[in-house]
């Protein structure tokens, strides 16, 4: 069902945790539906210096969280914003059709985290 890569990231997810003084937080999903992602980013010079996640959800949701954090860590905000669900699916070796929405979840959480960072920065 799941690719080798999905299972690896699910069993040994990278960048798990919270960033207490995060510059931006993105929350996406709904525990009522089964998938919920919290992304925490630390931004320096418009680059994602650090990123961590906490995810409630299925193996796909956890694996997407993990791979997404790896893909954008160290990237500029602009690069991060250009990430698509197809990029994630490619990187992760595909997902079963009924799980594709998990990749969307990751993209959305990331966008929200960056939006949150921008809003906070703007407010300063």
């Amino acid at each position, binding site marked *: 069902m799941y690719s080798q890569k999905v299972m690896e990231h699910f069993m040994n997810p990278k960048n798990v945790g919270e960033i207490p003084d995060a510059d931006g937080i993105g929350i996406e999903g709904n525990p009522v539906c089964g998938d919920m992602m919290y992304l925490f980013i630390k931004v320096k010079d418009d680059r994602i210096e650090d990123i961590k996640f906490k995810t409630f959800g299925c193996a796909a949701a956890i694996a997407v969280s993990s791979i997404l954090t790896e893909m954008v860590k160290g990237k500029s905000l602009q690069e991060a914003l250009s990430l698509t669900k197809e990029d994630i699916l490619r990187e992760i070796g595909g997902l079963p059709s*009924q799980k594709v929405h998990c990749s969307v979840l990751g993209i959305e959480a990331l966008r929200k985290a960056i939006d949150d960072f921008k809003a906070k920065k703007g407010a300063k």
Partner: protein
Amino acid sequence: MREVYLDNMATTLLDERVLEKMWPYFRENFANALSPYPMGVKAREAVELAREEVAKLIGASPSELIFTSGGTEANNFALRGLAYANRKKGNHIIVSAVEHHSITNPARALEKEGFEVTFVPVDRYGVIDLNFLERALREETILISIQLANPEVGTIQPIEEVVKLASKVGAVVHTDCVAAIGRMEVKVDKLGVHSLSLSAHIFYGPKGAGALYVKRGVRIQPLIYGGIQEGGRRGGTENVPAIVGLGEAARLVRENLPQWKSHLSDLSMKLIKNLQEKVEHLHLTGHPEKRLPGHASFIVEFIEGEALLLMLAHRGIYVSSGSTCTSKALKASPVLSAMGYPAHLIQGSILMALSKYNNEEDIDYVVSEFPQVVSRLRELSPFKEGWKDMDKWGACAPH
């Protein structure tokens, strides 16, 4: 790595002795059971012997049994067959809110065909509301279908009470015993039902064989028309090896049920007790006492069932879950919903259904691994410390 299969409500490991009995009918004696020459006659005799075994198991007469391709066909057959055979008397059907898909979906189809269907609610243990049922009864009520035991939460229903109520309006009672057979005593006279379904692969028999008991004198319309097989009530070349396997599986249940039952309930009691001690925010689902022996179902808070299931599988422990993500239909368990659990809790549902093959060491292994896996997933969960912001999230739209 130790392997502990606990998904026995999905299917069970075929008993070696059953396969041995089936074996000769694959090639050695492969004839059609209607053929009049000796090889066909032997196949016929094997089929009829199997029918006797199934009859003995449930205390029926062989002529009251119709072989089917499994539990789903038997349930569809019962619902449509009994509904249409009684159409003249009325059009009202009652089923419980926690029936298997193979009951609720044909019931919904009948609704579109002019029948009226009432779904009986259940309490938080999954037990049907008998008062509601009684009030729902009418002159036109022709059929009531209530499972004997629920596969997801193990709860056993008060079928005898249902039969008593049904008799007031002369309704026929069907009971889905697919989850029950092999785990508890099932006798048609004690239950008093008119119809009863069972499926071999849930009690160490083969896939592809089930049966519908229809009490003598109760009329039923065929679902699958064909030749004169099964007294004209179910056509199709008989699946002789599978039917023989069903018969042998039934014989083994009849001979071993008392031991299996106590073995199963010892193990599941130990499992439930230990997990409850070791894991916080773990809730037993289903009735605490009136439940199938060997059945342990829980809600594990703050984590999601498919992830839990796959991480357990990685350690050789095979279970199932009623979470949205586990269901290929992407729908959280309707059974747990009917019992009043909110959707975010249902996401963490998990079912460990034991079999006669499990032993103490299996339980010890699960008791040692399960808490670790739960901790690991809770580490990843934003809800590790408890549900938060729950008011923020509305209902879940279908994916």
